[in-house]
């Protein structure tokens, strides 16, 4: 209880410190440790000296140093050359806006040559993580306490153990308690406590997932006797649990790859599958969609940064229009003269794809362009022992949404009806008054537009460069041919089964061989069923 009061008192004192520092030029608190000297040590010596300095700072238990440590980890901590004072610097144009590292006192601007950056590497960052962990265990916010506990869990810092146990005794929030208990067990394994305590810690950890494996294997390797046995047993428990999840993870990865394939191929399912045009420029439509996203994001960044999270939604209709319009021009300008001559179509569209690539290269330059992930597409969450990344999740949702809309469009609208009529029997369609050339152009534009919105999605996981489309053209044809030409459902099933097949092969055969095996499988499959999974029957096939 005394301890608690003491800490609360310290905390209060610290939050008042900046105010009093304004009037007092020498902020060293006579009662506390000489923080200024300790912080000064951060700038001295090698990386390992810096780690020791951080540990010494953490040992003071002063929360006032947390901002300085955070700045150190982020590379914002500098030493002023004139007087050796440690400052936090934020870049402002060519200069730095500097504030005192401990008191937060505003020290004005400093030139690039007046301050020297305190270098950090990964080991220093780890030390900072551990130090901040033990310093923020008593934060009033539960989420900060959880992340403090987690950083102790990852660093397994035995020095934080006492602070952690004290915090645990006072903790009331159940979630925080769980995190702290886990962290305590992990830290005990690295401490010099008796084996009995360690065995208990091993049992505590055995209910965890992949992230406890590291700590457990380290114990199993370094100990003997009962402790080793307990650790090994816990490891095999965890591994058994993981094996089950692994299968689920593979299915998920397969669906995710499948959804990318579906997105890339679905536009082609219209231009090639429904219209029968071998469109080698399909990949470039995807690329145009990705570049539209880039332009939209760039405009938003420069003019309305607060809209950034909406950039993809804004880019979607634009990408559809841009790629659709280019597709329309290609159909009207080139392809309509080449119907019924597949070889010439192939060569002409391939030429168009080269022209488009070089045009983009000339306009935007040959280097990759940065397309950012909006916040709702970054990061991941854990489902059991599976890691599900948000961008993959949204792409799967998006792919199915596009598929559903397209299906609806072909089955339930008048345009869809005309489109199907033209593909099934051109003469009859013309005879009942459908303007077939117009429908051809619109269908091709639709397929290209869909490729464009696929580009918006793919810009989130791949490079936005002039070569973007090339990587998808082969896969797209593979999916459409495998699924069955002329059938949207075939494309869906084809994409998903190829995705899952690929991901189940990859862990055993490796990425290179896996891809080859899939290709061989498709070749054999086409030998057996030349029209793919879902063959169209009837007059259209012969046409």
């Amino acid at each position: 209880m005394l301890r608690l009061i003491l800490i609360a008192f310290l905390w209060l004192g610290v939050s008042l410190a900046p105010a009093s520092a304004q009037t007092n030029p020498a902020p060293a608190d006579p009662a506390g440790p000489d923080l200024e000297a300790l912080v000064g040590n951060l700038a001295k010596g090698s990386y390992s000296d810096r780690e020791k300095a951080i540990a010494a700072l953490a040992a003071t238990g002063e929360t006032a140093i947390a901002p300085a440590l955070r700045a150190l980890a982020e590379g914002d901590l500098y030493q002023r050359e004139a007087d050796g004072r440690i400052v936090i610097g934020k870049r402002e144009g060519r200069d730095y806006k500097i504030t005192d590292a401990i008191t937060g006192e505003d020290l004005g601007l400093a030139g690039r040559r007046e301050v020297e950056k305190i270098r950090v590497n990964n080991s220093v960052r780890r030390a900072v993580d551990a130090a901040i962990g033990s310093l923020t265990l008593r934060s009033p916010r539960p989420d900060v306490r959880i992340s403090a506990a987690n950083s102790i869990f990852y660093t397994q810092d035995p020095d934080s153990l006492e602070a952690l146990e004290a915090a645990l005794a006072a903790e009331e929030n159940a979630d925080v308690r769980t995190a702290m208990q886990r962290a305590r067990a992990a830290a005990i394994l690295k401490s010099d406590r008796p084996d009995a305590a360690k065995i208990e810690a091993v049992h505590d950890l055995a209910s965890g997932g992949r992230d406890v494996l590291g700590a457990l294997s380290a114990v199993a390797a370094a100990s003997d006797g009962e402790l080793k046995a307990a650790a090994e047993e816990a490891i095999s428990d965890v591994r058994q649990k993981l094996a089950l999840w692994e299968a689920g993870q593979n299915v998920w990865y397969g669906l995710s790859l499948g959804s990318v394939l579906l997105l890339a191929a679905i536009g082609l399912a219209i231009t090639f599958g429904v219209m029968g045009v071998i469109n080698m420029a399909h990949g470039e439509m995807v690329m145009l969609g990705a570049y539209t996203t880039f332009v939209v994001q760039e405009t938003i960044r420069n003019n309305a940064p607060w809209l950034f999270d909406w950039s993809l939604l804004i880019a979607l209709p634009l990408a559809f229009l841009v790629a659709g319009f280019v597709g329309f021009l290609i159909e009207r300008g080139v392809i309509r003269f080449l119907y019924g001559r597949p070889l010439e179509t192939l060569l002409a569209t391939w030429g168009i794809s080269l022209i488009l690539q070089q045009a983009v290269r000339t306009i935007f330059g040959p280097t990759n362009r940065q397309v950012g992930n909006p916040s709702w597409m970054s990061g991941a969450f854990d489902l059991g022992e599976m890691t599900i990344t948000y961008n993959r999740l949204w792409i799967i949702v998006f792919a199915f949404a596009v598929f559903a809309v397209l299906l609806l469009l072909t089955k339930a609208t008048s345009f869809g009806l005309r489109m199907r009529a033209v593909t099934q029997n051109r003469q009859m369609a013309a005879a009942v008054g459908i303007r077939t050339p117009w429908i051809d152009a619109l269908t091709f534009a639709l397929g290209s537009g869909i490729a464009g919105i696929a580009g918006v999605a793919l810009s989130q996981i791949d490079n936005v460069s002039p070569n973007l489309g090339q990587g998808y053209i082969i896969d797209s044809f593979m999916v459409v041919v495998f699924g069955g030409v002329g059938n949207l459902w075939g494309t869906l099933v084809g994409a998903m089964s190829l995705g899952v097949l690929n991901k189940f092969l990859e862990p055993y055969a490796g990425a290179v061989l896996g891809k080859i095996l899939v290709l061989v499988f498709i070749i054999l499959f086409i030998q057996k069923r030349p029209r793919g999974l879902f063959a169209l029957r009837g007059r259209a096939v012969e046409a």
Partner: protein
Amino acid sequence: MLKVKSVLARGAILAGLGAAILAPALTAPAAAQEETIKVGILHSLSGTMAISETTLKDVMMMLIEQQNEKGGLLGKKLEAVVVDPASDWPLFAEKARELITVDKVAAVFGCWTSVSRKSVLPVFEELDSILFYPVQYEGEESSKNVFYTGAAPNQQAIPAVDYLMNEEGVERWVLAGTDYVYPRTTNKILEQYLKDHGVAEDDIMINYTPFGHSDWQTIVSDIKAFGSGGKKTAVVSTINGDANVPFYKELANQGIEATDIPVVAFSVGEEELAGIDTAPLVGHLAAWNYFMSVDTDENADFIDAWHEFIGNEDRVTNDPMEAHYIGFNMWVQAVEKAGTTDPDKVIDAMVGVAVPNLTGGLSSMGANHHITKPVLIGEIQDDGQFSVVWETPGLVLGDEWSDFLPESKPLISDWRAPLSCGNFNTETGKCGGQGS
């Protein structure tokens, strides 16, 4: 002899022409044409490699322009001859032949991928011309006609592994690369090196992916699983070109931070990072001989000149650009030393030439046609730049035949007379002997 003859013949024809028709009008441009020294630039400006090589073409144009402002070379102006081999390996050989025989260039600066270099190598040896190759490569080669200004494995891969082993205490290694000659050879060398340093077979995981691989989910989760073995784990990445962006994006999304599993890359520079948001990648590493962030006066001048030349303040500089800077200046100095652009004399003059590099040192050309450079390890920062965390105390000479491969261990290369051999076997004492 043949060369002298053909130049004479051409001169005679020109003189004849000039005398015959419109003497004053034609001799002036003809004379101006005779004044230039031609420099060939053999970098892809279209196709997959354009992303990296276009920048190198631009930097060569800048260097040539700067040299001309300083008054040219041997009293003549330099003239760049740019060709586009379009990322097509056989076309590299064709274009190289065209540069040497048709345009009669004095030297060629070019190539990026090892396969393009292998494709032009016979052409340069047959026609006895000079190639400056500016990119880090796998070693195991030495040619009289090629000057390797990029890093050999001992100037990049080995120091990077040393750094991770000593400074970060890494005990488990993932060697991940794209499936072609550079990663395969480098990983072979690294694997042997790690085993020599007591790393067990079980603690090394080797993984290859196809060019342009974009679905990294399985591999990243494998790396995560491999890293949960209770030992500090690091990834050594020789993943090439475009595949890096999705790889780093997947790492960031799956929450692998540099403090848990650092990735050290040999093909990721400032240019590659320009395509990604680097905030989640802070702390991942790269090993090069130059970083744009290096704080020297030479580098500041170079960056300013580059920005002015390209007309864009946002363009970055990178390691192969520095290699061309060094190579070009070495060539200029060697031509001045030899007093001629004749390849044989320039090749002899090249060895021992020393020019300032951009990191504050003096790089010199070794007898094995490789250069001395410092090795820098940098950590990725949130602004897409690297912050140097470690560097070799001195300069390191590129080692063409790795000491960590049994077949190349006994080989050395020395292009000075009297040895003048690219693969001298110190065990058998013969030139041209591949090792046992």
